[in-house]
C-alpha cells in the first residue's frame, strides 16, 4: 500500500458515512422516535409500509437495483410496463438529456406478460414488498387480457394502467388524452380483475380533473400521476430529431411543478388515493406531493441519478416527521389545502 493510504481509506469511509441515511444522523434517541412514526399508507387496498414506490420503467423488474437498495424497505415496487405480447421497443437513440430532465422513447420494450410471470414475478414475490404491475396495450381488449392474466397468478398487489398508449383501432390517438377512451380502458380492466386498479394519467391534457373523474367513474381504485410530458429535442449538428422515435416523454426534476399542480388539482376534486410522481428526487420533493394530496409517491428518473434515491426519500420523510412532531404520515396528505 502507498504511504498514507490508510488515512485515505479512513477518509473515504468517513465521506461515505456522511452520506448515510438521515436515520443514522438522527441519533439514538430520535431513532426510536423515528420508529414510532407511522409511515404506512393504503392505496386502493394496497397496504404499503411507507408511501414510496418506484416509477414504472425506471426500476426494471426489481433486481437491477437490489445491489443498491434493500427492496424490502420500499413501500411497493412498480415494475416496467407489460403488454400481452413481447415488444421489441424503439430503435436508438432512445433517450436524450434535457435541462434538469430527460426524454425517453423506449417504446415499451418488454418480454410480454407470460415471460413476466415466468421469469420476473417469482423473484418479486420472494421480496415480500407489494408488487404493482404497470400494464399497457394498443386495444381495450389487450389491456383486459393482460389484467386478466395477472389476476390469476398470485403475487401481484395491484395493476397500474398506463393509458398513455396509442389506440391502434382509433388511428393512434392516445387513450390517455380522451376521457371517454380512458374510461373505456379502465372499465375493461376493472371488469377483468379483482386486483386494485390504479389509473396512470397522462399530463398532456387540457383538463386533468376531467380525466381523473372519468377513470374514477369507470372504477379505478386509485390514480397515478403523472406520466411523462410529450417533448422532443433536435440536434443542431445533424438538424434532425435526436430520438429515433422523434418525440419522447419528458421526466425528471424539470417536470415537478407541473406534476405537483396536477396532484393538487385532482386531490381536491376526486376522492381517490393518488400516487404522485414526476421529478421526485429528494425527501422534500416527495413531501411536496404528499402535502398537495398524494397518498403515495414514486421515484422515477431520480433512480438513474442516485440509485439510493428511494430509500433516501423514505429516510428523509421519517426525519421530517420526527423533527416536525408528525406521528402519522397520513396527517400530511393534502395539508397544503386542507388546513
Amino acid at each position: 500500500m502507498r504511504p498514507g493510504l490508510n488515512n485515505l481509506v479512513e477518509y473515504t469511509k468517513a465521506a461515505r458515512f456522511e452520506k448515510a441515511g438521515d436515520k443514522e444522523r438522527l441519533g439514538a434517541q430520535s431513532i426510536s422516535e423515528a420508529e414510532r412514526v407511522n409511515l404506512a399508507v393504503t392505496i386502493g387496498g394496497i397496504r404499503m409500509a411507507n408511501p414510496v414506490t418506484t416509477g414504472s420503467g425506471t426500476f426494471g423488474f426489481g433486481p437491477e437495483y437490489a445491489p443498491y437498495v434493500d427492496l424490502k424497505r420500499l413501500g411497493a415496487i412498480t415494475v416496467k410496463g407489460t403488454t400481452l405480447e413481447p415488444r421489441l421497443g424503439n430503435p436508438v437513440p432512445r433517450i436524450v438529456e434535457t435541462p434538469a430532465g430527460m426524454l425517453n422513447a423506449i417504446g415499451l420494450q418488454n418480454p410480454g406478460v407470460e415471460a413476466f410471470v415466468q421469469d420476473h414475478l417469482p423473484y418479486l414475490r420472494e421480496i415480500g414488498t407489494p408488487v404493482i404491475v404497470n400494464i399497457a396495450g394498443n386495444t381495450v381488449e389487450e389491456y383486459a387480457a393482460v389484467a386478466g392474466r395477472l389476476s390469476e397468478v398470485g403475487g401481484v398487489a395491484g395493476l397500474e394502467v398506463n393509458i398513455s398508449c396509442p389506440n391502434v383501432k382509433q388511428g393512434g390517438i392516445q387513450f390517455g388524452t380522451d376521457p371517454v377512451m380512458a374510461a373505456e380502458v379502465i372499465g375493461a380492466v376493472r371488469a377483468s380483475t379483482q386486483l386494485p386498479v390504479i389509473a396512470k394519467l397522462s399530463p398532456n391534457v387540457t383538463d386533468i380533473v376531467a380525466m381523473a373523474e372519468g377513470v374514477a367513474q369507470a372504477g379505478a381504485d386509485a390514480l397515478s400521476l403523472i406520466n411523462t410530458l410529450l417533448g422532443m429535442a433536435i440536434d443542431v449538428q445533424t438538424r434532425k430529431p435526436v430520438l429515433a422515435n422523434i418525440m419522447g416523454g419528458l421526466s425528471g426534476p424539470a417536470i415537478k411543478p407541473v406534476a405537483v399542480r396536477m396532484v393538487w388539482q385532482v386531490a381536491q376534486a376526486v376522492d381517490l388515493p393518488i400516487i404522485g410522481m414526476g421529478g421526485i428526487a429528494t425527501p422534500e420533493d416527495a413531501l411536496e406531493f404528499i402535502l398537495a394530496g398524494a397518498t403515495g409517491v414514486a421515484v422515477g428518473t431520480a433512480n438513474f441519478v442516485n440509485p439510493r434515491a428511494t430509500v433516501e426519500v423514505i429516510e428523509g420523510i421519517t426525519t421530517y416527521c420526527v423533527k416536525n412532531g408528525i406521528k402519522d404520515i397520513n396527517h400530511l396528505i393534502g395539508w397544503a389545502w386542507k388546513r
Partner: protein
Amino acid sequence: MFSCSALILKQEKLTNDHYLLTYLAPEMSQRARPGQFVHVRCGDTWDPLLRRPLSLHGIDPEAGTLSLLYRVVGRGTERLSRLSEGECLEVMGPLGRGFQLIGREAIVIGGGIGVAPLLPLVQVLIRQGIQVTVLLGARSQEGLLAQEAFQKTEARVEIATDDGTFGVRGTVVDLLQKRLESYSSVNPGEEAKRDICVYACGPVPMLSAIWQICQSGQIPLQLSLEERMGCGVGACLACVCRVKVVSNGENQKKQPAQFGVDAALTSQDWKYARVCVEGPVFWGKEVILDATRPE
C-alpha cells in the same frame, strides 16, 4: 456493485481534451474486471442530470484505486475535468460484462479514446500468460493515448496513424490484417483460430472493419460498445444494441439465453440487448453493429 463518494487522488490533464482521473475505492477496485465501466455524476445539481458511463482504464486492487481515461466532448465530461484532488466523485460500479480471456494469443485493438478499457485487459491477459499484440490507431500523433502505458507492459505494441506522423501510415485495420496473416502462416489450420482472440474498442467504422475481417476469417472477436445510458444497471432499457438471435430450434423463446432475462424479446433474427448489462463487451459473432432498425 457499489455506489459511493470516492476520493479523487489525481486528475491529470494529458492533452487538450484528455484527462486521467484516479480515485480511491477499495472495494470497487477489488471487484472490477477489464472491460467493465463505472457510471459517474458530473456535478451535484439537476443540470446536467444523468450520470456518464466511463470505462475502467486503471484497476489497482492493491492500492485500492481505479482510474478513468476520458475525453472532454460535452457538458458532462467538461464538468468532470474540473474536479480536483481531494474532492469527491459520485461513482457507481463496476458495471457491465467485461472481456472474456480466451486462447493463447490476443490481438488488442484500440482507436482513439477506445484504448481506455484496453490497458487493464492487456495487463490481465499477460498475467494469464497469453501473448498479446496491441494495435493502436489515431488520426495523427496527438491522438495517440496511453501509448507509453501499453509499452510498459510485455505486450508487443504496433502503432498506425492516418497521416503517418507516428508509427505506420495507415489504420489499425491494416495492422490487424498483417498480424492475422503472419499468425495463420505460423499457425495454419482452422483449429488454430480458436487459440487467438481479437479485442477491440473504438469508433464504429473501425469496429465494423475489424468485425468484417474477423467474421470472414472466423476469428473470435470481442467488441466494447457504447450507447447513451440512463440507469447503467439494466433497468431503463435505454442503452440497447441489436444482437443476433441464436436459433435453438422450436423452444427457442423459452430459453432465457445468455443475454439475460429479456431473451424472449425477438424479432425474426435479432433482439435488443442492453449495453450496460449484457455488454458493453459483446462477441463479434453476436452483435449487429449498425444501430438503425431494419424494417
